[in-house]
């Protein structure tokens, strides 16, 4: 597994805590939605940076009120064909203006990377060996023209307001 963030591999500073583990005094801590909801308000006010991991079926609404306290929202994709998390991501970015890290976790394949990025994910936890191989070899997704508004570094195309181009291709 490797963390691919904003187009490069990066170290992962986040620690996953389960119910039995004690909350550390500081650091980056990723909790399940249930664990987060159980966490006493006083503990939420510690020096720890919190993240919540949403499973499919768990909604953006469930953490909407807490987003100012969260530095990371991770969304699980149990199978690459399960696309619920794309909508969850867009709701977090567009409706709730979440500006922290948005991370996809699970079955993530090379040919979907742009879909993730364009829904507002800035980090992907990748396990698929073929995908890792391609990324390590420096391969990038190829599409530069998009027919609908997306998140991230895109510029509007003059031809229609919903059309966009990858920022790099527009400046090239």
């Amino acid at each position, binding site marked *: 597994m490797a963390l691919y963030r904003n187009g490069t591999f990066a170290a992962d500073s986040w620690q996953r805590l389960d119910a039995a583990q004690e909350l550390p005094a500081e650091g980056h801590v990723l909790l399940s939605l249930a664990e987060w909801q159980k966490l006493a308000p006083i503990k939420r006010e510690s020096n720890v940076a919190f993240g919540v991991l949403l499973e499919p079926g768990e*909604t953006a609404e469930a953490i909407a009120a807490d987003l100012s306290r969260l530095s990371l929202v991770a969304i699980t994709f149990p199978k690459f064909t*399960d*696309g*619920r998390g*794309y*909508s969850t991501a867009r709701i977090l970015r567009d409706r709730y203006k979440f500006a922290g890290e948005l991370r996809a976790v699970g079955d993530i394949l090379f040919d979907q990377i742009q879909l993730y990025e364009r829904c507002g994910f800035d980090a992907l936890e990748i396990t698929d060996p073929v995908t890792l191989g391609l990324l390590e070899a420096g391969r990038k997704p190829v599409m*530069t023209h998009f*027919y609908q508004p997306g998140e991230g570094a895109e510029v509007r195309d003059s031809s229609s307001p919903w059309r966009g181009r990858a920022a790099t291709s527009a400046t090239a």
Partner: protein
Amino acid sequence: MYRYDNFDATFVAERVAQFKDQVARRLAGELTEDQFRPLRLMNGVYLQLHAYMLRVAIPYGTLSPRQLRKLAHIARHYDKGYGHFTTRQNIQFNWPALADCPAILSELANVEMHAIQTSGNCVRNVTADQFAGAAADEIEDPRPYCELLRQWSSLNPEFSFLPRKFKIAIAGAPHDRAAVKVHDIGYQIVRNADGEIGFAAYVGGGLGRSPFVAHKIRDFVPKADLLNYTAAILRVYNLEGRRDNKFKARIKILVHEKGAEAMRDAVEAEFARSRDPDLVLTPEIIDRFKSYFALPDLPSRPVPAQNFEGRRAQDADFAHFASQNVVAHKVPGYGVVSISLKPIGGIPGDVTAEQMEAVADLAETYAHSEVRVAHEQNLVLPHVALDDLPALYDRLKDSNLATPNIGLVTDIISCPGLDYCSLATARSIPIAQRISERFGHNGRAAEIGELHINISGCINACGHHHVAHIGILGLEKKGVETYQITVGGAADETCALGEVLGPGFSSESVVDAVEAIVETYLKVRKSRDEDFLSTYRRVGAAPFKEVLYERA
């Protein structure tokens, strides 16, 4: 028609390059079949019984002669010389090699065509009324809106991995020729009390193993909101649609389980919350898209059309063709001509490369260079001067394309069935051929009048059998093909699902059973003016059940 700008051309070229790379990775063994399958499907490449199949989109059923010639070229050069038009305004090639598919897609891109999203759990080819832009009864041409939806849904990052496939259709006239009520979303163009034009929104229709007629969830979606409203429906579906069972994953099941009212509330709430200003269709944008589909300059022609009337008076065959295959055009002196791809005893929807080229030539000579594809698996020349019809008719006859049977019992919709399809449980084409032979001679079909027979080779219902006046579903029982018959379905604005008459029939007896139903209809109809569907609606299924099961 719509012309690609640089943006569109680059998009499709990039997509072809991407697929070329994916195919290369697959052939080199770097992608497993499980990983590759969804990628090839998103580019229209299926595996059937004998070979791969490539499904090419014909957006809203509109083709230029140049595009049709390219399809002919592909059929000849990469396939076995023919193509098959489907009920979804697509054309399928039945024999391409995987290694050739990127080359085929790149040839298609040269004529502004593609196979993007002709499969997969995404928004499929958006379909429209085949008479769009030409029919006299039309409120507005649906194609500009289909094109807008096509663009917005292409590789949409949020909606490329939906629970299941998603089909949208738009009808432009009160008489629904696009079967909008059996689509995931059906938009019917309507005029509201203030005289504005917009869309009535139907959601949750579909066929397959559990057929449903769609529910209307909104009387009027303003044009400006078409994309945002569609996005709201898709988002509710993407988040709430079932993913635990492939057979329950279509939006129709969500609407059914949640209830149409709750679905409407959820969509309205989502729409209110997440309206994206970039997706609002301004009058300028709408006008621009409408201009792509402007009616060609049709020079005024004399009315009545003397050439046409003269031939009609002398030539009964021509008169029959004119009454069966030609409908009224918006512009007086013109007609909309359907070219039947249902020759008597032929394979519904199949056309050879030579026939495609012949139609392309005829479209240039007589029809302002436009061709349409109908969901009934026929072609249409939308703008023909009636005075040119005699000459057109003669040339159609030369190419074996003048079968005068639109809407008749021999104009059968049939899916490929077990002759090609790996999901099939029975053959459908041979049944269609035999029914066509049975009724196709001595004016019998014309005497019977309008009667739609649709055949599917399995429960997936690609042949629309549920919404046929007489529907035939091919199943397998203990290794033997058996055919279940329904009556009383309709795909138009009076949409209804057919009623199963009883136990199935063997391949040998199914054509006799259909004939018995038709003979019964002829006996009980009040007059020649009472067509099969109206008669069924008056008398119900009882007389048909009786003739099939009780007299035996």
